[in-house]
């Protein structure tokens, strides 16, 4: 009984919210719109199953996911040290700020053109774009995290006898982790936008390519399968990321 109540309060309303989304979609599609251009979820799921069994869906999904992961990991690995250096040393900040402040206003979608010219329509151009869309958010959040460290944390370490290097590794770095993780989470959301846009324009596979083919051959159901897959994929990745933060880095929560 207590377990049931726990499950209800924890997941019940949440599941209800999700269910209502599909119910409203179903009702709108059948009774309000009634057009093949807006298929109900039942139809989309049936089509999704067909595509999943044939392996087509998985192929596109794997292609998109691989690009996102490769670019996201590379972009974070590059962005974190740059952000730390910019937040810690004023000259570095002055030197690199023109790059970050200029480039972050050129949307990654706009960079698709040059990416394709430079790297072709293969994997390289997609991974370049995901790195591009990831790196600035991670840099800015990391640098902001470093400057947000309470001065008393540094002072306390100094009067406890820590050297500048020790202060960096034992105080500045761990104090910045919550900001780094937030930056990575935002970057992950951006990656989804970018990968679809890039695959719409130039790709041989991926969920974006699936969308484009759907439009080209008037396969409305396929378009919706791709859209729902994107939504679910984004939702699941974000949840996994939050879960990982909570499990492995819970003590780095920005509470104190």
């Amino acid at each position, binding site marked *: 009984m207590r377990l049931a109540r726990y499950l209800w309060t924890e997941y019940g309303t949440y599941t209800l919210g999700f269910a209502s989304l599909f119910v409203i979609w179903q009702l709108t599609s059948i009774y309000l719109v009634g057009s093949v251009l807006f298929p109900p979820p039942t139809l989309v799921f049936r089509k999704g199953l067909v595509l999943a069994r044939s392996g087509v869906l998985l192929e596109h999904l794997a292609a998109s996911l691989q690009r996102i992961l490769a670019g996201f990991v590379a972009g974070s690995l590059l962005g974190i040290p740059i952000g730390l250096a910019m937040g810690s040393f004023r000259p570095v900040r002055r030197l690199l700020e023109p790059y970050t402040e200029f480039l972050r206003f050129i949307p990654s979608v706009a960079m698709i053109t040059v990416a394709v010219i430079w790297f072709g329509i293969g994997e390289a151009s997609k991974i370049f774009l995901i790195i591009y869309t990831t790196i600035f958010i991670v840099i800015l959040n990391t640098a902001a995290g470093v400057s947000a460290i309470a001065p008393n944390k540094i002072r306390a370490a100094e009067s406890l006898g820590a050297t500048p290097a020790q202060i960096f590794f*034992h105080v500045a770095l761990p104090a910045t982790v919550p900001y780094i993780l937030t930056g990575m989470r935002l970057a992950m959301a951006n990656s989804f936008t970018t990968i679809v846009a890039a695959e719409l324009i130039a790709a041989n596979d991926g969920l974006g390519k699936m969308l484009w083919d759907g439009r080209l051959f008037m396969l409305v159901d396929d378009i919706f399968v791709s859209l729902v897959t994107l939504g679910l994929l984004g939702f699941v990745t974000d949840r996994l990321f939050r879960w990982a933060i909570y499990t492995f880095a819970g003590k780095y929560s920005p509470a104190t």
Partner: protein
Amino acid sequence: MPLVSFHDVQKTYRSLHGVDYPALEHFSLDIEVGEFFCLLGPSGCGKTTVLKMLAGFEAPTAGRILMDGRPVTGASRDRGVVFQGDDSLYGWLTAAENVEFGLRMRRIGKPERRERAMRYLDLVGLRGQAKKYPAELSGGMKQRIQIARVLANEPKMLLMDEPFAALDAQTRALMQVELASIWRATRTTVLFITHDIDEAVILGKRIGVMRAGPRSRVKGVVEVSLNGARSRTDDAFLAYYKQVYEMIRDEVATSLSRAD
């Protein structure tokens, strides 16, 4: 020779508009080895500036600050600092890990530093909270962690910047009693900053009363010859309270009229 001496120290702050504010001028003070010195003054008189300079966080504009006869040139583990708020604690470390931070920086082996951390957690009455994170502890407990963290590092002196100011009245009174007994047990030299006369008379062996800023300095020093645990209802306590109160009353009035 005193442990610490301020010789004719001057500190001037420059505002963003380029206006100079002389916080301290001709500030001189000696602190003896093993004494509990309370620096008392109205808000804005520069008490915290005195502590920051002795800690080595800020340099004086003119004058000399000596410890053991050598000038203070920066932060050092000789002078452990207990801050007013809890933002100096490391939220990602447990209470015990916070306490052993200084020992870890000196690469003292884990068994020894854990043993020492537990000893000082015991001293501040927090042995049972060793594995908790600061966010899980109350305000009073967090200040005790700060005190244990500094004591475990065995500094030559303790600098405390209104460490109990953010606590509720009951917790503050309890912490004062505990700090007094810790001091009697360890006999570490303490510079304790406060604006609370009651707190100064409860804790201080000597009380330095500061003038209202700007150009603040020590107005006078009161020696408190009460031994052992002090009681607020003693006649002697009340007499000292009155004496310090008379000294600081005009300064508070001045500082209030200047704030208008």
